[in-house]
């Protein structure tokens, strides 16, 4: 077992493009769940809409990535409106059910064989990233020699991605210290009290849903850039659950909570993944094959994630940075 290469690999992943997209998705969820108390289980839907807009703009409309970006984020706004109108007046669990259902609807529709001429079916869309690749200023591997390194393309995606993360964090920080943000937080604490003060709770919730959804859309954009492709399997329901785990590790209702959470989460996922794969691989595996074979090794980390999410929510719902009193939420 090579511990230093394990850690090096996990570090490379923890700051790499996938961690960034989880981070952006979690920042969006932070606006929904952490600040407003909205339970959005369909962040994957927002990501998918924006991701496919980027890809589709180039391959379907032979237009530019910029147009795709703008259209994608606008579509996220539309999606948020569509989801919010029927549910935001209802109890919190209705939003949860409708968002998880909508994300799956979008995924099944876009991935359907009937639209495979347009959206590529289960294979998704590829070959749209040339324009972004051409802007890459790096031409060799970057990183800290001997510890971690990334390919030139990954490093360029990371630069763009972390810049987006920084921008989103700044926006969230500015918004949440404004009077508007204080209204959101008070909606989370007691919706009726806010309503009695004459605020339009429905409208505030809708604005929060839109802003968080657009940030989720940016996560979809990073997904498209990372893989140079978009496909239905990238936007499965589990990605939303992973983003929730990131958010809860770092601490909800904290600007930097999702950032730290995503880095730690993705570090641990890769560490466990590589650890169990090493422990079960080779001629004389550390863990005997009757307990775990190499197929099962890749599942172990997700079992741990599920268990971790439960334990985290039960024993430390405030995560690393959060304030426990702020998350004494109830079904409102």
């Amino acid at each position: 077992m090579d511990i230093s290469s394990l850690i090096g690999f996990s570090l490379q992943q923890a700051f790499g493009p996938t961690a960034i997209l989880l981070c952006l998705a979690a920042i969006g969820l932070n606006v929904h769940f952490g600040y407003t108390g909205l339970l959005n289980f369909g962040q994957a839907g927002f990501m998918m809409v924006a991701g496919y807009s980027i890809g589709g703009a180039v391959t379907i409309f032979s237009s530019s990535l910029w147009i795709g970006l703008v259209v994608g984020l606008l579509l996220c706004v539309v999606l948020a409106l569509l989801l919010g109108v029927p549910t935001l007046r209802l109890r919190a669990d209705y939003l949860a059910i409708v968002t998880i259902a909508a994300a799956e609807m979008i995924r099944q529709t876009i991935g359907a064989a009937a639209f495979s001429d347009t959206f590529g079916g289960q294979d998704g869309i590829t070959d749209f990233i040339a324009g972004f690749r051409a802007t890459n200023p790096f031409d060799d591997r970057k990183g800290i020699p001997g510890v971690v390194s990334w390919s030139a393309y990954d490093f360029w995606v990371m630069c763009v991605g972390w810049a987006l993360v920084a921008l989103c964090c700044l926006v969230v920080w500015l918004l949440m210290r404004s009077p508007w943000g204080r209204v959101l937080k008070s909606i989370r604490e007691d919706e009726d009290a806010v309503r009695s003060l004459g605020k339009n709770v429905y409208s505030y919730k809708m604005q929060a849903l839109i802003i968080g959804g657009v940030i989720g859309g940016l996560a979809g954009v990073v997904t498209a850039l990372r893989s140079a492709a978009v496909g239905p399997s990238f936007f499965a329901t589990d990605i939303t659950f992973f983003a929730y785990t990131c958010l809860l590790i770092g601490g909800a209702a904290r600007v930097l909570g999702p950032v730290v959470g995503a880095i730690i989460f993705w570090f641990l996922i890769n560490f466990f993944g590589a650890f169990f794969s090493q422990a079960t691989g080779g001629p004389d595996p550390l863990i005997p094959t009757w307990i775990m074979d190499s197929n099962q090794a890749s599942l172990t980390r997700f079992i741990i994630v599920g268990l971790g999410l439960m334990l985290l929510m039960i024993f430390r719902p405030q995560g690393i940075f959060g304030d426990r009193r702020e998350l004494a939420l109830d079904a409102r």
Partner: protein
Amino acid sequence: MHTPRSRRAVAVGALLVGLLAVLVPMGSASADASSTGRKLGCSYEKHAEDEIHIKGCLRDERENPPAPVPGVSVTVTDSAGEVIGEDETDETGVFDIAVPGDPVSALGKEFTVQIDEETLPEGAALRDPDQVELTIMFSTTSDQSVIFPIGDPLAGSSGKGLQAVQLFVGGLVFSSLLAMAALGLSMIFGTTGLTNFAHGELITFGALTAFAVDRLPGDISLGGANVTVIVAVVAAFAVSAAFGWLNDAALWRPLRRRGTGIIAMMIVSIGLSLFLRNLYQYLAGAQSQNYSQYAAVQPWEVGPLLITPKEVVVFVLAMSVLVAATSVLRFTRIGKATRAVADNPALSSATGINVERVINFVWIGGAALAGLAGALLGLTQGFDYQIGFKLLLLVFAAVVLGGLGTIWGAIVGAFVIGIFTELTTVFVPAEFKFVGALLVMIVVLLIRPQGMLGRSQRVG
């Protein structure tokens, strides 16, 4: 003098005996069918281990025994439309086409098998004239066989009307299973307020428990008949009940005692779902499975419709369980207490109802229903580790449509959603049937948020 408890035990016993009486002859019937299949000599040639083939054998089912149909050309194309192999059925009616490349590279790829109707002998036709091609996907690295039933074309089978009736029958069977799962979810929501996102995993638990019992070495027989799968289904019901108790006792009751909020509990249920689903895959693998019996049974022809005895038994069983469950809720003491708690936990607690006991009862009953639904669903269409997770959204749609927390609403909603999903395939491709159901749910929330049978109180 019978106490209510012993009367219930008698009723359950009677139900089980009835179930055995219906299923046992069916098992022997299907054994006959498979032995005729062997007598026909539908034998395929062996080929090298590192190859993967698509094969099938054409039989004219008007003859008895069915006669092989030679000289029919069969073409296989891949998803890009490239022809990868052609064959003509030999004198035993068998065709066998090798898929290029190694078996692993074929995983997850789709292939279309098409038969040339022109080459069918005079007077023979496909039973379903629309089905000249079949699309298959390799989910394992073993050979795939395809079936093209040949015989008299089903009268008017091209008509949308008959197709709709056939789908309606299939929808009824599916709905009865959906209703069992939905009833459990709705009761748990009604008494605890928890929207359990891990309910799908309770469904899978039933399917997997039945599978585990089925895979125990040796057959279980009763009076000479092989009843392995029947015992497996009954075991799934019982073990799922215990699993429901465990869920409540080990996780949810302590959380309620701590005063954990509903939203926090929903996220815990998401974690539980993720945990269990991956654990299932860890233990059972990712491939789709079938039980050892009843996987392929000869359908009955009822007029122009094709109905398998399996479907009839599953439907009758599911309906009896639903009637039993709703009767328990309606007439027994614990059932009345359950409805009281669902109505107002604080008030029912004040009138001396033991709310914790009621909630525990609901978890046991809800999980048992979900587990039975999973086992029966596995019986009708096969299962894999995420059968419940895929079904979960339809269960939600059913419960929301009928009214969250209502008993009759869950059942009515399940039938509307189950039949709707099947019937929409008359007009739109089958891959959109879930989308349609979820769309219905969202529209219902827009115009009648409390659901069809919910009371029009404020739910916001």
